[in-house]
């Protein structure tokens, strides 16, 4: 099948959906400018015009309410944030208004709005341009939270998000934009609440979100050479979060790591671990390990950033500990790094 990038998959989803439904419009800071949100909005303003693809003043709070208002009046807004941190300016509309408009109108009005959010490790971006934040929204009833990892998921989940009748936040990791994978040309949806088994294995289960799936696959590749078989499950949507397939996996392997692209404390890894434990108690051979960011604001210097972000090596060491393995010799292994393609801010 055709291979395209994650970025192009997003772009194709936008194009096909806007083609399909004239009520869809896309807006946000810089959406139609020549950088086109890292390329993910390319072609939209040319094809659909300035009415359906537009920029705005820097007013995140009002822009959020604006989307809600258009949504309850029958439109399908897609609001893009180039950094997840900017969502903090939208919290009132997101958690006091958008999340509850349907409920408080007892279903007479709905808010089918999509919020595309780019997160991800920068390049000395620092503490205000590096947050993930998705677990916060998962705590609010009325919001759906989606984390596509593969190009296939990026397209299918975004299309599902746009067709959903409720507000959906889609978090895209900047580093995933360059990943390639098989993506059908025709339009398709992926139902929410269906985890994706990225790799089957029998020795340990990794539940990974977003970019951490890439790190997990790398770790699994390396350990496979030693005969260790790792199962990797990507929940893909964390609200709704379907933990069943994960429970089955952990009951099989007896070990579990939750590798989350966020702070560990009070994040997705807490909810995931709590649910897994509750259903796997007798079968767990070791406590669930939770891997995530260091619990500090994100520093800028590269060596501190390296200490802040978890990666495949942390996962390997964690697996070794759980399975009582000697440390793998990692010399000569080529770990993922954007050093060479990625200079300047993401």
């Amino acid at each position, binding site marked *: 099948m055709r291979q395209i990038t994650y970025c192009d998959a997003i772009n194709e989803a936008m194009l096909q959906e806007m083609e399909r439904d004239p009520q869809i419009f896309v807006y946000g800071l810089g959406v139609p400018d020549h950088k086109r949100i890292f390329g993910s909005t390319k072609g939209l303003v040319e094809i659909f015009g300035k009415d359906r693809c537009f920029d705005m003043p820097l*007013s995140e709070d009002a822009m*959020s309410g*604006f989307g809600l*208002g258009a949504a309850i009046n029958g439109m399908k807004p897609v609001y893009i944030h180039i950094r997840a941190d900017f969502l903090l300016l939208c919290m009132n509309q997101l958690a006091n208004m958008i999340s509850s408009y*349907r409920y*408080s109108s007892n279903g007479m009005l709905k808010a089918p709005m999509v919020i595309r959010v780019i997160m991800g490790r920068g390049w000395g971006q620092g503490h205000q341009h590096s947050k993930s934040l998705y677990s916060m929204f998962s705590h609010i009833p009325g919001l759906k939270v989606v984390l596509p990892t593969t190009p296939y998921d990026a397209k299918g989940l975004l299309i599902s998000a746009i067709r959903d*009748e409720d507000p959906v936040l889609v978090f895209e990791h900047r580093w995933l934009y360059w990943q390639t994978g098989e993506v059908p040309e025709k339009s398709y949806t992926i139902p929410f609440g269906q985890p994706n088994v990225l790799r089957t294995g029998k020795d340990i289960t990794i539940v990974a979100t977003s970019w951490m799936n890439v790190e997990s696959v790398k770790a699994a590749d390396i350990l496979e050479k030693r005969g260790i078989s790792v199962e990797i499950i990507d929940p893909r949507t964390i609200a709704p979060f379907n933990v069943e397939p994960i429970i089955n996996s952990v009951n099989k392997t007896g070990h579990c790591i939750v590798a989350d692209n966020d702070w560990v404390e009070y994040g997705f890894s807490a909810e995931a671990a709590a649910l897994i434990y509750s259903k796997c108690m007798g079968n767990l051979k070791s406590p669930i390990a939770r891997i995530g960011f260091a619990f500090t604001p994100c520093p800028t210097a590269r060596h501190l950033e390296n200490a802040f972000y978890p990666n495949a090596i942390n996962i390997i060491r964690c697996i070794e500990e759980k399975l009582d393995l000697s440390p793998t010799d990692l010399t000569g292994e080529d770990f993922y790094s954007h050093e060479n393609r990625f200079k300047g801010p993401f």
Partner: protein
Amino acid sequence: MCLGIELYKKMYLIRKTEETIIKYYPEDEMKTPMHMSMGEEAIVAGVCQSLSHDDQVFGTYRSHALFLAKTGDVCDFFAEMYGKDTARLKGKGGSMHMCAPMSGFMGSSAIVASSIPVALGAAYANKRAGNNKIVATFFGDGATDEGVFWESMNIACLMKIPIIFICEDNEFAVHTPGTERRGYSSLPDIIAKFNCNVLKGVATDVEEIYQTTMEGINLMRKNQMPVFLHFKYYRYLEHVGIFEDFDAGYREKEEFLKWQSIDPVSRQRSNLLSNGYDEKEIENLENEIDLMIKTSIMKAKLSPFCDAEELFREVCR
């Protein structure tokens, strides 16, 4: 003449409905915090009269008057105050979160200023649909302290969005007067520097308010710039609740008496009379409304509550 009586009916319905709340609230069956509209009737009546049925309004937690002026649906109103199954919202909204989209009442919010940008987006959708609908968003003077008010004004003026901003200025945010909240002397003077149509007035003459709003709408149709209406009025009761609070010390009863002497409802009644309207006819209309209110509240009291499973309906996941 017909207009004058329409306006009066709206205001009378609002006033009497709130008087009925005051009567029944102490029974403790309407378990929802009441932010009363008393004193404000002319603004919502005048503005809503100038709107068509399909035009849309957004309100705040203080929206009894707006809801009744736009929908006239006192039956649904009381059903919701009592949290009953017969209410459209089935007790999910209460006094602060009313909603009746089929009549253009698009919702009200208890977070100050938060429905302003929502109204903006709704109006944008109308513009894109080319349906000629107008959106009117009501808010207090306190709401203009919030950043989102300024963001929304700017966007509306920039994008030429068909929206009317109505600032209902009662000089207080809860108990804090404007003088302790404003770093400027006149809001309309500032807003006039935006690309919009600014009109203002004192809000107890309902016909004048109607005329002012019509003028604003005509301007907007001509120049496509949003309208900003600024009306002063006086809040008769405490911020929340059914009592007066002139003993609290933050405002003077004299002020109230001054405003009461130009009370919007009785003023319009006198107008009608002096314009030759027959008092008997007015009384007939009043009686009809009284009866409607009475029936509504009785129906509400007698209606059942929804089943508890309703809690989980209309929320995703």
